[in-house]
């Protein structure tokens, strides 16, 4: 495998609703910042890949107009996944592995504010048996959360601790939407939203975007003083049928983690894409991370969750922290589908 690193990361200030900007206006400064960070223009980018979904914007081909944000002229080599941007990064990483290009730009975005994201995401579910019932995202997460609590693996206090830590960590993240210093006791005292779910178990509805530049070998060293090298990256999917899965674990996370080399351990921290508190515990256990590994120093998806970009942001946050010298080895994940159906795991390492 060729050595490929994340050399630049930029994200928007995440907000509940970007009411004065459309997707292009939201994305353009972030793409520009990602390129400016490493002092390059589109002429040095060999491949561009983006992640988004038409269903959040409520427009077919929504990604077509947002391509304008990179200024694709002269024409560029470009592709798009209808997936979280972390998978766009994977596709770009594959392109760099072929060895013909050295630099790729990845971006992802979503505005959840135009529609009702809880309802919109029901359209991901089986169209014959499940989607006609419209069970929303919180309901799907509730089924998984209850299964975890019933299994005895976690208590409500464990879930509250995840939320409290995420909000506290987010205080130091200028891009985060939801921050706070409530204690576990404070959170547990709040009324339930829908038993077993509290509001704090759920991510904030978020408009936002992110962009990442990856580069290979010497080009990465030229562009960054301390590139965050991708030591392993893999992704797996499992059945969507909840009845076929043990909801208290994530087989796809474990498999992807194993393929990405997680078992070697030695992680200074992890950025886990887990939109709901129980999912962070499930992902952590599935990756075999012990209690000493800090999770989501950025605040994670529980403090800003632009759907389709939140996974890419985990990879970007982990890489930035490594490049800044705040840790040398990290694990970052992305998830998609109900109850952690599809997962990507990336192991990142600095040069230290």
């Amino acid at each position, binding site marked *: 495998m060729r050595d490929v690193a994340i050399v630049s990361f930029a994200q928007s200030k995440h907000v509940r*609703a*970007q*009411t*004065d*900007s*459309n997707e*292009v*206006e939201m994305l*353009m*400064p972030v*793409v*520009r910042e990602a390129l400016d960070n490493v002092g390059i223009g*589109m002429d040095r980018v060999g491949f561009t890949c983006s992640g988004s979904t038409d269903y959040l*914007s*409520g427009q077919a081909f929504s990604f077509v*107009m947002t391509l*304008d*944000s*990179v*200024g*694709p*002229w002269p024409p560029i080599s470009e592709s798009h996944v209808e997936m979280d941007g972390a998978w766009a990064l994977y596709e770009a990483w594959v392109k760099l592995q072929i060895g013909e290009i050295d630099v790729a730009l990845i971006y992802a975005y979503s*505005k959840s*504010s*135009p*529609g*009702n994201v809880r*309802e*919109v995401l029901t*359209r991901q579910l089986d*169209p*014959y048996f499940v*989607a*006609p019932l419209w069970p929303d995202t919180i309901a799907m997460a509730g089924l998984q959360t209850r299964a975890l609590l019933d299994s005895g693996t976690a208590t409500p206090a464990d879930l509250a601790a995840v939320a409290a830590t995420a909000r506290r960590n987010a205080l130091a993240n200028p891009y985060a939407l939801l921050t706070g210093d409530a204690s576990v006791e404070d959170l547990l005292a709040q009324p339930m939203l829908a038993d077993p779910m509290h509001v704090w178990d759920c991510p904030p509805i978020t408009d936002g975007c992110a962009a990442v530049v990856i580069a290979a070998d010497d080009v990465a060293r030229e562009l960054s003083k301390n590139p965050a090298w991708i030591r392993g990256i893999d992704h797996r999917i499992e059945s969507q049928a909840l009845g076929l899965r043990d909801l208290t674990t994530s087989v796809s996370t474990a498999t992807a983690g194993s393929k990405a080399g997680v078992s070697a351990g030695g992680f200074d921290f992890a950025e886990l894409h887990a939109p709901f508190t129980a999912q962070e515990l499930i992902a952590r256990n599935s990756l075999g991370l012990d209690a000493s590994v800090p999770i989501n120093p950025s605040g994670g998806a529980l403090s800003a969750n632009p759907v389709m970009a939140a996974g890419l942001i985990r990879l970007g946050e982990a890489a930035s922290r490594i490049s800044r010298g705040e840790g040398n080895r990290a694990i970052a994940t992305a998830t998609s589908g109900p109850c952690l159906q599809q997962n990507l795991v990336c192991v990142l390492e600095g040069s230290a």
Partner: protein
Amino acid sequence: MSLVLPPSIADVEQVKSVRTPAHLDYSYTPGKAMSSFLRGLEQKKIIGQKCPQCGKVYVPPRGACPTDGVPTVEEVELPHTGTITTFCVVNVSFYGQGMEIPYVSALVLLDGSDIPLMHLMQEVPYDQVRSGMRVEAVWVPDDELKPTLESIKWFRPNGEPDMDSASMRGNA
């Protein structure tokens, strides 16, 4: 492959399709540039934006130059006249469409802009519309002006001589 069915449904007519209606509400954000354009229409003005790098004028403005990838902020008020670069005669109706057919959908290059705008052509028989034809915007009555593109009802010939189509090459 043939299915083995239990006796309880073996002899009844099988379901072959299912209705799954979908209903989703969206409210869109036009963005800064489009908002300014739409507010302009309400005042019977057509407002474009000029790219600081290539100097091209875009209308409707999208806040970004698609070829340079930079924000466009300088606003340019455009005249209400232009030239048809190309067009088609629409003779088909479909779900959700309310137009009387046939009608002409034309690309109109407003004077002083660098990109044609797609709009409706009226007040001329559909078979007399041609590339190079000079046209002007027809607005709704002042008290019906709204921040929408429907404030321009359509375009119509303004009587000036045709433009040479070769001069529009880049846009047609």
